[in-house]
């Protein structure tokens, strides 16, 4: 669907890439962390395409993120010694990618339902 929006000129190629990337990273995080790899968890996705922005909600009913943790994830993903090749992290970049490439990110958890809301400003072609 996202590729089709790019083909139709509604999204630019770069916008389509970052939307697909961040949506994918959010879903993978739900599977791995909210549902701990369980195959039976439900993940709800909604995508709202406005004139100037795209808003994506990814919702789950699994384990929530710790409160006030978004900034920590953004920082931790790049806290490594680039000269220490053997010590480079191979995982843990998903949420940091979302936080760096979406124009706004919010996370809320209410009544057992967790939602990651991502918004990207778009400029057409």
């Amino acid at each position, binding site marked *: 669907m996202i590729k089709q929006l790019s083909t139709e000129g509604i999204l630019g190629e770069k916008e389509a890439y970052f939307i697909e990337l961040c949506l994918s990273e959010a879903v993978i995080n739900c599977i791995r962390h909210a549902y701990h790899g369980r195959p039976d968890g439900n993940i709800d996705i909604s995508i709202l395409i406005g004139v100037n922005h795209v808003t994506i909600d990814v919702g789950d009913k699994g384990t929530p993120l710790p409160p006030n943790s978004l900034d920590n994830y953004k920082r931790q993903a790049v806290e490594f010694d*680039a000269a220490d090749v053997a010590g480079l992290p191979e995982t843990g970049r*998903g949420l940091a*990618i979302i936080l760096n490439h979406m124009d706004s990110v919010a996370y809320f958890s209410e009544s057992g339902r967790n939602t990651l809301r991502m918004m990207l400003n778009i400029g057409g072609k």
Partner: protein
Amino acid sequence: MQINDDKVNGILVLQVIGRIDVSNAKSLKIKVQNLIGHGEVNFLITMDRVDYIDSSGLGILVACLKAANAAGGTVKIAGLKEYHKQVFQTMRLDRVFQLYDESTQALA
């Protein structure tokens, strides 16, 4: 994902075509590990025909670098699309990998 390999100036060039994502990234690591097992240690991964890369792809590239480095070599990367390069930069992987716009620069 398709991976073509060729040796140029003593460097094993891996041309990756398609997507590097959570579903297939491990195959690149397996390819590199097999080549290291056959004595190759210096790699150039060309990315100009890569359509998509996610955090799993980034992690596998890091794993390839670690494996090559442990064997006494390294991994260079060439031809990243502009927005893929942005992800490398925000994740500070441009400080880890030698990145080149063109393969010829990496092989010089």
